[in-house]
């Protein structure tokens, strides 16, 4: 019977080995931790491999003895049980030897850890803020800040289109960093916990609302490095990637200059004192709605029952009372929990300040006057809503 066992075991091992081999042969399979592009990520990788091989070695010895025993000390082979059941000497040996191995692991681990915690004397400091569900980047030494959200089209996620090469790991505005500089990264969050992680840098760090964590990195090679949010942050946790574009110092300076020039252009285009046409507002509004609001309220404004209210007048929204109450007070909920288009001033306030205690966040800091004006105009004149309201950026500016 045990022979049977070994035959089966052997076939299992053969099959697994074949699987493993075909896995290695195909480039699409990723088996191991990436080596990364920083000194930290390399020492973490070395540490990981060191401990892995120690474990493999221990495993070979332990399982080797076990399988030897299982093969030779079987009743069917006529083995007679010995009756020993104690030996202080071996107990001491197999307590002390693992202790020594552990000390051997702890020394390099401590060295790497101490180096990782040294955030002193950075060349550049970037503040990373986690939002549900995007990242905000702020260059503290430059006057640059922007948001970075998933750019994979929704059709790809819904399997209506072929998935691109960087499916779910691509963003509209990547974080651009220079190579060879010590970059200090401060992480925090605006709403719930997030964790900022790019495997090629060798670490992740939690983003905690109300607290700031600091870490550092020096990227060695130019390139594009991709990662993801690593702490569960709600519905779209899987859809807020991190993309870093590491550039040479020269290209980085060029990018900084472009960003500053572009910022001036955008400011001009979005001039708040200009009168916008309804068509302009509607088309920009759709862009903002689909990019920002649709992850909860859906592209068609239908919302999600019990969680995210519809934006379409006449639709019913059944949800727990604490969620309904602010909507009712602000005039957006009629009898029988029907959504109504409340006053435009209240609509503006909700977008600017959010609804405390709910998933509706304040967009005053995240969106420009023009964007807020456009999205409100769009929402009040789409999907059968026909208030005819046209909100100008100047109105938003004075409402702030």
């Amino acid at each position, binding site marked *: 019977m045990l022979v049977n066992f070994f035959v089966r075991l052997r076939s299992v091992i053969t099959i697994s080995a074949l699987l493993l081999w075909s896995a290695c042969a195909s480039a699409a399979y990723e088996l191991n931790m990436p080596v990364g592009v920083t000194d930290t990520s390399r020492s973490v990788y070395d540490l990981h491999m060191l401990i892995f091989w120690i474990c493999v070695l221990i495993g070979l010895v332990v399982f080797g003895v076990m399988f030897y025993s299982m093969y030779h000390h*079987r009743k069917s082979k006529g083995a007679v049980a010995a009756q020993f059941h104690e030996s202080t000497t071996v107990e001491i040996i197999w307590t002390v030897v693992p202790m020594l191995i552990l000390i051997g692991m702890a020394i390099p681990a401590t060295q790497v*850890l101490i180096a990782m915690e040294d955030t002193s004397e950075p060349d550049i400091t970037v503040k990373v803020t986690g939002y549900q569900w995007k990242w905000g980047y702020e260059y503290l030494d430059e006057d640059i800040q922007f948001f970075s959200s998933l750019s994979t089209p929704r059709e790809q996620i819904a399997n209506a289109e072929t998935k691109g090469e960087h499916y779910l790991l691509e963003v509209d505005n990547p974080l651009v960093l220079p190579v060879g500089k010590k970059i200090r990264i401060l992480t925090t969050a605006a709403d719930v916990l997030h964790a900022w992680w790019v495997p090629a840098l060798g670490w992740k760090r939690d983003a905690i609302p109300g607290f700031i964590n600091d870490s550092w990195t020096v990227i060695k090679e130019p390139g594009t490095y991709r990662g993801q949010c690593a702490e569960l942050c709600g519905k779209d946790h899987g859809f807020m990637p991190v993309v870093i574009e590491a550039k040479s110092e020269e290209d980085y300076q060029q990018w900084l200059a472009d960003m500053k020039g572009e910022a001036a252009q955008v400011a001009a285009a979005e001039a708040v004192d200009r009168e916008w046409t309804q068509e302009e507002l509607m088309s920009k509004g759709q862009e903002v709605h689909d990019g920002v609001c649709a992850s909860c309220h859906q592209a068609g404004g239908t919302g999600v029952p019990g969680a995210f209210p519809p934006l379409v007048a006449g639709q019913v929204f059944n949800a727990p009372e604490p969620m309904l109450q602010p909507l009712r007070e602000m005039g957006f909920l009629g009898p029988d929990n029907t959504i109504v288009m409340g006053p435009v001033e209240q609509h503006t306030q909700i977008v600017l300040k959010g609804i405390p205690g709910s998933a509706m966040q304040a967009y005053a800091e995240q969106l420009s006057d023009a964007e807020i004006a456009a999205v409100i105009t769009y929402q009040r004149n789409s999907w059968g809503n026909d208030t005819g309201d046209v909100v100008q950026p100047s109105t938003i500016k004075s409402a702030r």
Partner: protein
Amino acid sequence: MSTATHVHEEHHHGPAPGLSRWLFTTNHKDIGTMYLLFSLLMFFVGGAMALIIRAELFQPGLQIVDPHFFNQMTTVHALVMVFGAVMPAFVGLANWQIPMMVGAPDMALPRMNNWSFWILPFAASLLIISLFAEGGGPAAGWTMYPPLVLQTGAAFPYLIFSVHLLGMSSIMGAINVIATILNMRAPGMNLMKMPLFVWTWLITAYLLIAVMPVLAGGVTMLLTDKYFGTSFFNAAGGGDPVMFQHIFWFFGHPEVYIMILPAFGVISQIIPTFSRKPLFGYSSMVYATGSIAFLSFIVWAHHMFTVGMPLAGELFFMYSTMLIAVPTGVKVFNWISTMWKGSMTFETPMLFAIAFVILFTICGFSGLMLAIAPADFQYHDTYFVVAHFHYVLVPGAVFSLMAAAYYWLPKWTGHMYDEKLGKIHFWLSVIGVNVLFFPQHFVGLAGMPRRIPDYALQFAEFNMISSLGAFLFGFSQLLFVYIIFKAIRGGQQATDQVWEGAEGLEWTLSSPPPYHSFETAPEVK
């Protein structure tokens, strides 16, 4: 046979007829049976949720569920499996076995025993119906981290009260175990003569009493943060979201050992039986269990290396966590030494026990890797962690439970189970579980975060393999149910000793044992 007539002659010694037998019972065997069947049911409820998760992850893209529901599944799957399946199953084993193993007629506190069981179905129902609440069920993970968990809709109070009730049930079960072991041992059975299963449960019970109130306190603080305007975990009000993680994991790490120490006990009963040789290093096993229990209180922050602790904190928790490898290693070495020069046979319980030793050692290795704080900055919150703790809980805790079920079923039912089907069940399970969880190490190392409903294309192949393993493992468990009910209904009559190498008081009783296990205490030499 004589027992059966005995029951008929003296009615008050036997079970009450009909439904009231189960509702009002104070008998350790009836309550143990209910615990075990309840946990089996919950194993399938939680397993169905796991299959929904794996079906969604079969391919990249969103196919079956939306992301919010996916998060509800990961959350409720974990809570159901931890509090509904694994913990009650071990309490069920304790109920059946501890009185028989220490030579007592029943548990020390039989009425509380009844109550601690009957809380469970209500607590589990609260948890499961919360999925149908407005706004969906709890979706913030079983760890319930604020502020995210405070965004839960109408399901929130269901979640909190369900955790409270489950905790009460566990504490009562634990008090009962301690009272029974300390007061009702047969004459001559001093502490260092107790079977190891009894020892591990004694230590587990103390862990439960120490940490379940901590969890209850933590979730109560969540409740007041949500409804009564407190700011325990809200930085804007002077609180700290990370404090919840400290509270949770001060409960959570001992909780892991609550689910694995009794498993060590089970394995320490089975391996000597089928090696026909006494357990090697009995006293060192007891001390190792005690050491693991002690260490479990000083390692909790290794679950939160990435929250931004001071260097000294990270070093402390790294070193203390690495230390766990020592007593755990001692246990594995002792099991192997027990097998060494034995006279082994490989019936189903032994097969599960051997798989436990191997696969538990693998999760020990990945645990050691995770203990290394700088490397954990990469591993943390990835599928590497998912693979690690599922190796602890499935081929660890769950395999030990299956081993225990096969080992003691003949004693409990009086019938041998179908050995051939048992072996088929073992092989399907052991292959399924490895195909399911082993590839998750790879995707985790390659960078796949946990708790995501959709993933980048480079993770596709291993996820597909993993999902196939999940379905194989999941559906194989139907065979387990069939084998159990077949053994309950009939089969070859089991002898009192059942297994050739079995030693201990429970094997001196008839199979099935009398309704009140030992009416006169046996003498232990």
